[in-house]
């Protein structure tokens, strides 16, 4: 297996250089520009139609960029056919060869590259051990369970020791329990072989669990790239905030702007502040204020100290096991969702009670509104 210590970990394996992909009038990928580092687990996350699979297929060579370049270890491969690119793909429905057994499926790659028989045998048995399928080598794909087929697909793609492994929603066809088990399997395998993984998914939890870095995509654009924590704590756009985890998103107007934060008026005239990095946010601009439900605490009296707070009325309570989900109504009618600890020192709350919702200023983010973003009540929601 390739040793990950022998290579420069910060060097980019894959560079996506201002790549645009159009299908007729439809822009599938709009100026994607990022690079993927050696040995990292990189995810492209977004709803269906966001361009993540098209980007993956361009890296694999099944599609060619309309403009821009894709570089593999610094070499432009935009015009190189898939069979001459040193990357391998794990397909969504595995695409195992039904007329070949597991061994022949896995050895297909090295055979195509004229590796000698003894080496093929050794490499295939090694990789089958890594994916724990040694005793299934003579089975056909149809004789295997979904999880086993998945691991054959993984072994088949890894046996060539590619520069990067591309995975297109590989866990999509598995049931929930198996999916969780495979997430750990994938991480383990990636650590063992030390190959760069490029992972496409629409499942934010999957991306947060496994990735070193995530590119969140929407409508063909890359909205944000960062570590799971960066993306969760400091989403760059309203879309990212809503797509990853749960978020309170409130309409607000900027009253003051400093280098790293902004003060806004929101929730019926309350003056609130939050961290802000977007250049487009200036005084007077309409923006969205984001606070995660678990960062909101509830008290019966106005909190003291450096806390942001608004007065609100309880509208609903839902017990959800580890947390209680509290729905509140702000003075202007905006909904506020707070996830609170069932052990919190609070009197028994009922709908209609008047409480204070508060959070640390660092828990709030001021996000620029997209120009085409609709501003309706429906838009200010907590995404599930």
């Amino acid at each position, binding site marked *: 297996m390739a040793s990950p210590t022998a290579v420069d970990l910060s060097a980019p394996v894959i560079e996506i250089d201002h790549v645009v992909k159009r299908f007729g009038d439809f822009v599938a990928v709009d100026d994607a520009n990022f690079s993927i580092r050696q040995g990292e687990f990189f995810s492209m996350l977004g709803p269906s139609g966001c361009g993540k699979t098209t980007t993956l297929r361009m890296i694999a060579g099944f599609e060619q960029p309309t403009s821009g370049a894709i570089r593999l270890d610094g070499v432009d491969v935009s015009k190189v056919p898939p*069979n001459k690119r040193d990357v391998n793909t794990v*397909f969504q*429905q595995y*695409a195992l060869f*039904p007329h070949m057994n597991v061994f022949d499926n896995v050895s*297909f790659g090295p055979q*195509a590259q004229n590796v000698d028989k003894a080496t093929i045998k050794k490499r295939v048995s090694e990789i089958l051990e890594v994916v724990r399928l040694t005793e299934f080598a003579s089975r056909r794909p149809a004789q295997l369970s979904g999880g086993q087929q998945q691991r054959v697909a993984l072994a088949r793609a890894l046996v*060539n020791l590619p520069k990067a492994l591309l995975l297109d929603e590989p866990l999509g066809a598995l049931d929930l329990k198996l999916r969780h088990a495979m997430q750990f399997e994938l991480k383990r395998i990636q650590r063992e072989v030390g190959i760069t993984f490029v992972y496409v998914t629409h499942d934010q939890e999957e991306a947060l669990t496994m990735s070193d870095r995530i590119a969140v995509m929407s409508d063909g654009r890359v909205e944000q790239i960062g570590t799971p924590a960066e993306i969760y704590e400091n989403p760059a756009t309203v879309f990212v905030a809503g797509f990853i985890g749960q978020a309170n998103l409130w309409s607000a107007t900027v009253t003051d702007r400093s280098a790293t934060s902004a003060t806004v008026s929101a929730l019926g005239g309350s003056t609130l502040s939050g961290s802000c990095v977007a250049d487009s946010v200036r005084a007077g601009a309409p923006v969205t204020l984001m606070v995660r439900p678990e960062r909101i605490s509830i008290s019966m009296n106005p909190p003291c100290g450096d806390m942001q707070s608004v007065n609100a009325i309880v509208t609903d309570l839902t017990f959800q096991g580890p947390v209680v989900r509290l729905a509140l109504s702000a003075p202007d009618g905006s909904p506020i969702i707070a996830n609170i600890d069932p052990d919190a020192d609070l009197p028994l709350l009922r709908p209609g009670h008047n409480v204070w919702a508060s959070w640390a200023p660092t828990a709030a983010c001021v996000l620029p509104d997209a120009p085409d973003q609709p501003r309706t009540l429906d838009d200010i929601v907590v995404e599930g």
Partner: protein
Amino acid sequence: MNLPNWVRAFGRISLWVWAGLGLVFLFTPIFVTILFSFNEPTGKYNYIWNKFSLSGWTDPLKYPELTDALIFSLKIAVVVTAIATVLGTLMGLAMVKYKFRAKGMIGAILILPLTMPEIVLGFSLLTLFVSINWSRGFITIIIAQVMFSVSYVATTVRARIRGFDWRLEEAALDLGASPFRTFRKITLPLIAPGVVAAAMLTFALSLDDFIITYLNSGLDNTFPIQIWNMKRSKIPVQINVFSTALLVISVILAIAVVVGGNRRSRKLAGLTEVSGASLNS
């Protein structure tokens, strides 16, 4: 519905009777052909049952013109099958796999030879060959038969590969196989049952074709044409012998293909080792 038992019984029996009559109607000519291969005709015409004899089977090569015609027909069938299967398979693949301009029109042109009267096709080809001054014979027969066989192959292959998973090809390319290796190792083995079926159909059509071949054969005689020519002077029992032999061979081939195909699909469904049960039951 609540029908008395005797009505149900009657219905069941008459269904069997009608089905049986239908089968008798279909198979009587074949049966007669086989039966008359064991006849010892009284004159030159093997029309009327005289008595059982193996004379036709012990001396099948009695009429060299008939034997030569059969060999000529088999030669043509082999060449036509080879050419038409390759061309038709590629056409069928292209029609399913790719989107291209005028695809609908090409699809329509493709089935045209299947729907056009043979006499029209045969005659227009003859006109063409005469006008460019090509002498008719082996080559023109091949051209004529390939022309309509390609349509059969393309249509058959196209129907059989509708559900083909094209990502298997992408997977093979992705693993480093050249497009040719991908075709040889992945696409062809998986579409083989359709291709074999199309090839068998083509072979049978080629042996059998009369009208188009007759118009474009010049002085060369295929088996059907030879029978046609001979029938004015004699209908020897050897015609029945050859026909019966061809029939037996094609039935054996058809059974082999069906059995092979079943075993293959059971293998693919993973049932060979799991259980002996058949999927088709």
